[in-house]
């Protein structure tokens, strides 16, 4: 089937304004008759719940953490892009649009990206009004820094904690609505099923994580703001609770999963120290503004103290390979370049899995105090984890899974192929194509939540009668029975391996065979090994305790079971896409080490339809058209 994203046509500059006018409205007195469920309270979910509540809808918001303030958007460090052009350095909405399309390696929709660039400026204003303490200069104006993949300084930031401050802004707006009674907040709840009645999304089944009860909630629309899935690699920069579960359950109820193979491996993370490790920690990309990336030229130097390696014996490989962008090359390119150096035997630190990020030149130029002011919290974090002082010796970095560009398929209104099911933020696939540029995840989450869904959900709700299905409907009962049966199964197996052991094994397979470089053979290997591991899981997993209590093993068992299914789809998507683009690098398709796209055969969104357990999913395509940005080889040289 050929999918239609229902993008508005005409001059790109007018698309969003025209579309907003064309959307139907729900009149203020009718809004309170509609119930909307928002799952997840990160930037997308928090902003959406607050904005929809303020508009007058009845909102029910859910998060698995103990408070909506803890969603993993909080961990974003570097910043948020906007086309304000405050520095007068040549930025514009058009340039942000252009950079994002190019940065995504021409695998995103033009209309969606245009809208994102257009509303980016409103986001900054909104956050300032909420009391987000963005960095300012002495005159009191907002400060900007540069970020990877752009030649202008368009990134706004709050020290190294931009995500935290933006999330707390959204959380404060949400708290105001909770107090006003327009939003009912349900924390420590995990969504375990989507309830679809006659093809329309009508609600969700959640587990109350405190007492284990399964609860049903009905609504006129469901918004999934449930983040990304890179914990499929086990070790990633995501929080421990991040999972594919909500999205996967929706997928199994009919929602198409688009471009799952587009995963972002972030170039600057603290290298793994041992097998017991539970997660990897990111060091903001902003560090590459002042840090220079290098490895020793000679293999025999790799074991030496870095400060003893002479300047001439260092290979500043990003500056060498990409002179115009240098250390600010986009993430996919910087990550692959790091892997290339390490594979060549010139990596540093344990296992040769590391490259240096060196601040010596900047400290000489600007002084240690300036560097401390810019990145102090990052240096502190680095020292806590590695016991090394980044001011005195270069930091060691290695790429780690960080972000999912792929996600549930949505049309221009952010609605999936299931009527009434909307998907926002990282959970959808829409704007980043095959690679996301730095400081654009925060932008997308807030754009979707504050400035897109409040309009587009009205266009849908205006066409449906409120309250058609209640939580006592037979489909809700069936959903609760299905989830109960699944949980009872985990608890009854009583095997020999823990959930973590399975997840670690799956993550190893994914990183090894479907990580930064993928081949036909490696992917076919995974397509054999993953089903076998899944089968073993269902025979040999051990989960203690019961379902009727707080049980973290049971929570993790469910997430792992879903990853064991989803990982296969990810590999299948990677295998079918016989090209390299952005975060998807197929070794067979390269040109002198650079990704080789195939625009003739693969210039489309690949959206997969679930066909049943152990059945091959069906691929649907949405062709991508580039009317404004010329399809070209992406070069940062």
């Amino acid at each position, binding site marked *: 089937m050929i999918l239609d994203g229902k993008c508005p046509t005409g001059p790109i500059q007018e698309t969003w304004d025209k579309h907003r006018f064309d959307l139907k409205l729900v009149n203020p007195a009718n809004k309170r008759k509609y119930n909307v469920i928002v799952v997840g309270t990160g930037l997308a979910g928090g902003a959406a719940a607050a904005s929809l509540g303020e508009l007058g809808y009845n909102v029910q918001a859910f998060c698995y*953490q*103990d*408070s*909506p*303030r*803890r969603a*993993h958007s*909080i*961990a974003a460090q570097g910043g948020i892009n906007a086309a*304000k052009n*405050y520095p007068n350095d040549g930025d514009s909405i058009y340039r942000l649009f252009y950079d994002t399309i190019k940065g995504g390696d021409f695998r995103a929709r033009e209309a969606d990206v245009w809208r994102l660039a257009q509303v980016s400026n*409103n986001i900054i204003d*909104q956050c*300032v*009004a*909420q*009391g987000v*303490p*963005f*960095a*300012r200069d*002495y*005159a*009191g*104006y907002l400060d900007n820094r540069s970020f990877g993949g752009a030649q202008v300084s368009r990134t706004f930031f*709050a*020290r190294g*904690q931009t995500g935290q*401050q933006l999330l*707390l802004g959204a959380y*404060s*707006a949400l*708290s*105001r609505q*909770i*107090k006003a009674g327009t939003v009912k*907040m349900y*924390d420590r709840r995990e969504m375990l099923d989507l309830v679809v009645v006659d093809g329309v999304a009508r609600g969700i089944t959640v587990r109350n994580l405190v007492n284990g009860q399964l609860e049903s909630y009905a609504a006129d629309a469901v918004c999934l703001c449930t983040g990304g899935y890179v914990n499929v690699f086990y070790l990633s*920069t995501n929080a421990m609770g991040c999972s594919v579960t909500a999205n996967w359950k929706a997928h199994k109820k009919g929602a198409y999963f688009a471009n799952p193979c587009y995963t972002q491996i972030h170039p600057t993370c603290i290298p793994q*120290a*041992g097998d*017991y*490790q*539970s*997660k990897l*920690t990111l060091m903001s990309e902003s560090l590459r503004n002042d840090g220079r990336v290098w490895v020793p030229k000679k293999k025999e130097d790799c074991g030496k103290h870095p400060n003893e390696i002479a300047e001439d014996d260092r290979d500043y490989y990003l500056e060498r390979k990409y002179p115009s962008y240098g250390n600010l090359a986009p993430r996919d390119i910087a990550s692959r370049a790091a892997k290339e150096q390490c594979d060549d035997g010139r990596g540093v630190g*344990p296992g040769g899995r590391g490259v240096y990020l060196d601040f010596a030149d900047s400290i000489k130029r600007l002084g240690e105090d300036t560097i401390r002011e810019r990145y102090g919290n990052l240096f*502190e974090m680095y020292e*806590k984890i590695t*016991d090394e002082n980044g001011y005195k010796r270069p930091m060691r970095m290695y790429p780690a899974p960080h972000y999912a560009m792929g996600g549930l398929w949505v049309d221009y209104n952010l609605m999936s192929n299931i009527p009434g099911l909307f998907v926002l933020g990282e959970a959808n696939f829409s704007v980043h194509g095959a690679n996301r540029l730095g400081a654009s995840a925060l932008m997308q989450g807030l754009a979707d939540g*504050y*400035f897109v869904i409040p309009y587009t959900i009205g266009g849908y709700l205006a066409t449906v009668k409120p309250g058609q299905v209640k939580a006592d409907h037979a489909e809700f009962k069936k959903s609760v029975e299905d989830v109960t049966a699944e949980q009872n199964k985990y608890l009854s197996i009583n095997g*020999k391996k*823990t959930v*973590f052991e399975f997840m670690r094994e799956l993550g190893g397979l994914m990183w090894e065979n479907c990580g930064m470089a993928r081949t036909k053979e490696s992917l076919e290997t995974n397509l054999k090994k993953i089903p076998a591991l899944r089968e073993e899981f269902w025979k040999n997993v*051990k989960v*203690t305790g019961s379902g009727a*209590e*707080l049980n*973290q093993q049971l929570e993790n068992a469910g997430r792992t079971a879903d990853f064991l299914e989803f990982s296969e789809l990810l590999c299948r998507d990677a295998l079918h896409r016989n090209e390299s683009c952005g975060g998807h690098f197929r070794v067979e398709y390269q040109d002198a080490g650079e990704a080789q796209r195939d625009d003739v055969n693969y210039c489309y969104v690949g959206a997969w339809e679930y066909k049943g357990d152990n059945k091959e999913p069906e691929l649907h395509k949405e062709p991508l058209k580039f009317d404004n940005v010329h399809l070209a080889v992406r070069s940062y040289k």
Partner: protein
Amino acid sequence: MSDHKTMTLTLIVWRQKNANDPGKFETYTAKNITEHHSFLEMLDCVNEDLIHSGKDPIVFDHDCREGICGMCSQVINGAPHGGQDRTTVCQLHMRKFKDGDTIYIEPWRARAFPIIRDLIVDRSALDKIIQAGGYTSCHTGGVADGNAILIPKPVADEAMDAAECVGCGACVAGCPNGAAMLFTGAKVSQLALLPQGKAEAAERVMNMSNAMTECGFGNCTNHYECQAACPKGINVKFIARMNREFLKAQFA
């Protein structure tokens, strides 16, 4: 990294099945721990052993494991987050301990934070304080340009110092009175410093103070244990600022 020496530690951990269970300390052994393990990774190892032997693992709150989400919350050897300067439990590493050490692990203990299970407590009282006024009442859309109101760098910086709070509740756990003054003071100060928050400053400080009392938090008697426990180093000067804002509000 097998070339590292490993440690064996004795853990004395608070176990409590649910809110109604009286709870008690249990003793466990943590083996094969390296200096690079984080504290929570050390607990992961202990839990894996417990699961293998068919016992219920120790439950604890955690999520980002990089010191920013504020979810982790354990009192270690009597100190919230383990007592290392500006460090959450998840960022505490085992190189701070020695082979053979005995470590006591307890949940946050405060009247306003009922225990849910083992090391997990209910901190929704902190959300209630924010709901009482920890925001500016701006609407989505229709706000002024970000540069329309200038905020000098020192003011923005001080607001940011206050805004760094991760809402973990260590300040409450560390306070002999179980007060949430540092938590509340930080939010009141952030918004009182910024021009965007000034319009509602008086109403905000009154409402948030009342919420603190209603939620069962104690009062401040200047022990400064909160600042010592705070993983973000939030300064007690923000409590003083809240007190000033509170006084000002009486005359507003």
